[in-house]
């Protein structure tokens, strides 16, 4: 009896693991499908612009405010620790490098996944539940080209812009706390930052990261919406899954990308 329970437990674990791998494969195939049917979202660029508005412009407030707060906290914490070593001017380096390399792309992507990714999933899922997608197919309009691809590209375009705004805003926040509030010398703050932050190694790599995250979030969000069971429960479950799996994907991809970027690409 005990053996049977053990085997059943193992089977469940195996079943779960296989389902996860299957879903990842399905997302990749879906991403391929989107890329194949992307021509329309550039030929009729208005469709994509509309999605940039919903995904990007509407996430602007949360990104800017969070960036400001994150930068301020970094300034405070960094000053507190660096002061022990008598190098409080380096707080600029600390704020800028941690934002540009890591926090900007990652936190902006996490916020973007929960703010815009979930909305994309819910929208597409509801379109499916109310049979709008089937109706399009009936009229010989490919729903992937008409509905999914513009949302995907809207997300991909918005994500790097939002990450850069997050970093820039965070650095302003760090400046406000460290220089205006605490009184670190402004010249040292900026000049140390400039000598430490490299355009190619830090800023461009950060932008590459946010671009990869944008692709991952948009692919997962559109996939979950498109594959959502056409019920109220199905759509709500899909929305939750979007946030959970894209957050995990962001953090896992970040580890891989960071490892490559620190080591160099060869």
């Amino acid at each position, binding site marked *: 009896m005990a053996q049977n329970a053990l085997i059943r437990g193992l089977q469940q674990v195996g079943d779960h693991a296989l389902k996860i791998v299957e879903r990842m494969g399905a997302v990749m195939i879906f991403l391929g499908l989107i890329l194949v049917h992307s021509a329309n979202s550039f030929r009729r660029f*208005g469709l994509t*612009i*509309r999605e*940039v*508005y919903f995904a*990007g*412009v509407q996430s*602007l407030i949360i990104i800017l405010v969070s960036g400001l707060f994150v930068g301020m906290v970094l300034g405070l914490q960094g000053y507190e620790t660096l002061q022990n070593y008598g190098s409080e001017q380096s707080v600029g380096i600390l704020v*800028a490098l941690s934002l*540009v390399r890591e926090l900007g792309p990652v936190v902006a992507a996490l916020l973007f996944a929960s703010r815009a990714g979930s909305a994309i999933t819910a929208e597409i899922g509801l379109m499916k539940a109310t049979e709008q997608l089937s109706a399009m197919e009936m009229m010989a309009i490919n729903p992937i080209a008409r509905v999914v691809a513009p949302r995907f590209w809207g997300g991909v375009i*918005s994500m*790097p*812009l*939002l990450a*850069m*705004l997050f*970093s*820039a*805003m965070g*650095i302003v926040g760090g400046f406000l706390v460290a220089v205006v509030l605490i009184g670190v010398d402004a010249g040292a703050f*900026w000049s140390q*930052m*400039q*000598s430490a*932050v*490299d*355009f*190619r*190694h*830090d*800023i461009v790599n950060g*932008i590459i990261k946010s671009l990869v995250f944008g692709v991952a979030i948009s692919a997962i969000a559109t996939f979950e919406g498109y594959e959502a069971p056409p019920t109220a429960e199905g759509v709500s479950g899909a929305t939750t899954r979007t946030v959970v799996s894209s957050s995990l994907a962001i953090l896992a991809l970040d580890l891989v990308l960071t490892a490559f970027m620190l080591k160099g690409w060869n």
Partner: protein
Amino acid sequence: MERSTLNLWVGVFVLLGFFAFLMLAFKVGNLSDGGGTSTYTVISHFDNIGQLKERAPVRSSGVLVGRVKSVRFDPVHYNAEVTLAIDGRYLFPKDTSASVLTSGILGEQYVGLDAGGDDQKLKQGDEIKITQGAVVLERLISQFMFNKAQDSGSDKGNKK
């Protein structure tokens, strides 16, 4: 929503993102101070480079003039071969000397260049002949201890 207001907002968004990029590139990053200007590389051999790493600064009189491009072990001379990428705006005499220095007590290590008096300037691929490696703290301490021990030993000898 009206198509035109939508376009307007997206335009504002893209412009904001562009400004953020410019700020990151020029105000935060080093693109303004010669990130894109041409460099020339010179090599130099050090008996010991300490903790010198790639992309460490190269300074002359304290001013940043270049970066360490690569560090490798030279299997022929059995010492460290360091390639320096120096900003094309700065030309140094042929007999310039290079030394591995430390900024502060616990700070990062960098290569310091001291200009010589030669008429000829260093060119791409040249070698800096006069070099001084990093000071290794353990050796310094052991040398000090050794001298101390020797002194006290000779003191005792004098007393007898």
